[in-house]
């Protein structure tokens, strides 16, 4: 099987120019983690495919969903959103979206949902035969209301049950009643899993899995934090690619090992003075889900202006906080309720301001993503507030995470050029 589904690491691609200038840099500039990540993900998808049709249970789960109870119950989690990103990166998305559109799914709906529904029906996928068929579905609406609707469609397509974990949205502060509600649902989820596996749920095992999750979330945070270093040892494009394990395999020992190695590698790069972007001049922050089919182009475009995207609001969403409590279900309730997309705009602004400061950011690159309303609506107000409070300018790129039909190369290029000129003038004025 060929799992060359994830695009080549932009950090590596970006090094091309640098390598040409100094051939000795060549080996040092490759992010070794990306290769290991490919192997890890290949093993994971092969394992999941092999389990199809056996006694082993497979669950499809949303990217912000609580995977820990599944892992504790020996259920294989499969992530349609990760698959959606693969469809985008391998440029299969549009064809499969069109299949869903043919059935009446509006072109205005989430392109992960459209692409995955198209793939489920046609079995077309970078994974031969498509994702392994689920025994049940687990949707957590902490990232959007769309996942519930999408999974309802999947539930009808595969004729399997859907468990919805309902995490009330946080406006300004957490309401204690909502955490009680979420905790009760974790009890319900455990009973639901027991009915699926016909085995008593092992709560000690859950504690252990949570410890792994907490550890890998912390390591992931440390990995991302290394980009506060100037120059940054990797860009958010590398983070987008290497986030796959924290999304899909958190809770397992493999993931902690992977991020421990990745952290060491980045520390080594810092000590050797290797940067993601040669002669880094500008430090930028990315907002929203990546534009999966344009990762390399965008990485090169920014790189050509010596601009490095050093942080983003997306990958840090998997830095779960709250796992570390005595009661595992309390920890799960907290961690999965307080996720970035489940909070109001004022709290998002707080986070953006914090990232801007910590990563010494010169400008914001805001992807206005037609597929993702909870991520995109409010961006204009965030943009204005950040400018007012810190003077940090930003650019809005109108696009879609996997539907390339709404992307315009020329428009993006012109806008980025103008933005970089603004940043250059700003720098000159300050000098």
């Amino acid at each position, binding site marked *: 099987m060929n799992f060359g589904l994830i695009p080549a690491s932009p950090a590596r691609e970006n090094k091309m120019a640098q390598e040409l200038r100094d051939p000795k840099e060549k080996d040092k500039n490759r992010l070794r983690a990306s290769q290991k990540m490919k192997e890890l993900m290949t093993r994971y998808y092969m394992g999941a495919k092999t389990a199809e049709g056996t006694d082993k249970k497979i669950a499809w789960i949303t990217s912000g969903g609580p995977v820990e109870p599944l892992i504790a119950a020996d259920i294989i989690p499969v992530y349609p959103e990760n698959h959606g990103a693969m469809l985008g990166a391998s440029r299969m998305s549009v064809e499969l979206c069109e299949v869903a559109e043919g059935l009446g799914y509006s072109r205005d709906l*989430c392109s992960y949902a459209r692409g995955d529904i198209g793939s489920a029906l046609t079995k077309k996928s970078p994974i031969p035969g498509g994702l392994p068929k689920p025994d049940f579905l687990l949707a957590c609406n902490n990232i959007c209301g*769309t996942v519930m609707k999408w999974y309802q469609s999947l539930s009808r397509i595969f004729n399997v049950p859907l468990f919805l974990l309902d995490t009330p*949205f946080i406006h300004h502060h957490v309401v204690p009643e909502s955490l009680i509600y979420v905790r009760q649902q974790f009890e*319900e989820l455990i009973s639901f899993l027991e009915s699926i596996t016909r085995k008593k749920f092992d709560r000690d095992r859950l504690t252990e899995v949570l410890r792994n999750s907490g550890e890998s979330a912390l390591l992931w945070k440390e990995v991302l934090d290394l980009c506060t270093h100037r120059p940054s040892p990797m860009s958010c494009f590398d983070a987008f690619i290497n986030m796959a394990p924290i999304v899909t395999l958190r809770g397992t020992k493999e993931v902690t090992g992977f991020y421990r190695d990745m952290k060491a590698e980045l520390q080594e790069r810092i000590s050797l003075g290797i940067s993601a972007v040669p002669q880094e001049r500008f430090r930028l922050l990315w907002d929203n889900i990546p534009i999966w089919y344009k990762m390399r182009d965008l990485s090169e475009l920014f790189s050509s202006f010596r601009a490095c995207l050093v942080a983003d609001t997306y990958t840090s969403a998997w830095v779960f906080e709250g796992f570390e409590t005595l009661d595992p279900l309390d920890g799960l309730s907290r961690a999965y309720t307080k996720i970035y997309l489940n909070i109001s705009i004022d709290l998002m602004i707080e986070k953006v301001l914090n990232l801007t400061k910590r990563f010494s950011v010169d400008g914001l690159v805001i992807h206005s993503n037609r597929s993702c*309303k909870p991520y995109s609506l409010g961006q204009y*107000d965030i943009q204005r507030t950040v400018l007012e409070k810190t003077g940090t300018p930003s650019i809005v790129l109108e696009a879609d995470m996997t539907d390339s039909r709404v992307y315009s190369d020329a428009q993006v290029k012109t806008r980025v050029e103008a933005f970089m000129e603004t940043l250059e003038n700003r720098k000159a004025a300050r000098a």
Partner: protein
Amino acid sequence: MGRIMEKQKALGALKGYAADPSAYLKNWKDKTGKKILGYFCTNTPEEMIQAAGFLPVRILSSRDTISLAARHLQSYSCSLVQSSLESGLRGELSYLDGTVFPHTCDSIQRLSDIWAENLRFPFHWDLVLPVKLHTESARNYLIQELRRFRGGLAEYIGHPISDADLCGTFHLFNENRSYLREVSRYQSSYPGWISAADSHALIKTANFMAKDEHNARMKQLFSQWGNGQAPSPRSVRLFLVGSVCDQSSIYGLIDSCGAALVGDDLCTGWRYFAEDLPNEGDPIEALADRLIRKVPCPCKFNPEIDRADRLLERVNAAGTQGIVFLLLKFCDPHAFDYPYLKERLSKEKIPSLLLEIEPGGLPLGAMETRLRAFVETLSR
């Protein structure tokens, strides 16, 4: 003949209000000196707002141009979200003293924050209703959230809202809902006897008028109506499915195409008034249970109810010949349900037509052409 003329006369008043809700509301405010709370979505417990001494008013807006709101919202948000914010930013909602945002969809949820920050009405409340409706834990949370809402309103007005205050409002709303269900009954029993545009005016006014006043008008109207008459045999029986529609021009199209509206499954329709409240027991629990029993909406999760089954029951009972899906473009929850509902209708050999309401003005010409063609196919 005299009876029809009286019907026209009584309807006239309500149609006048329907044409200009803000004139009515400003006048009501001057007259009573009371405050007005706007709200989104039929899941808002209007009874609670009324019990706090406010007039609950559904925010519906359909503007032809969007300019100020474009600084805050992307073009891919629905017409309700864009138009409402535009109206707010233009000061057209100045009669409001506050707004209630129940949790419905991703767009409304984000609109709430943008609204609070940029319009700054004295009162703002996010009613974070559960999405699940079928479990005990969801019901408990819903009850807690309704209590929290009562607490928030009480804090704003400076005195508690008792169970008796709350129960005291129920009859007003139950009475109003019974009149609106009667409109529905007329639509399905005597197709074409009330025009689509007229029935829309009756329902639209219920969404913003003071209930006592609306009830009095409706009572007057029904005393004049008596029993309907036999339908025109040639009118094609249409049923509307979708979210919100406050544009009378769309209803006017149904009339001008010679079709009869025999029922609907809309937020500005059946889902608003189908379910009543009991007059006994704990009032907060009663409000919670009403929301749980309410006609399923695509934003809510209840695996025990199939929305298509419920819809087909009513569609068939009304002798429907064709369905018109009237969806807001960029409305995700309804767009996700559309392929399934359409498939189920096709299995029952019920033809359907999809019309999308885009933000910033209706393409009425194109809509009319498509609707006319659809109605003509059905009348063959």
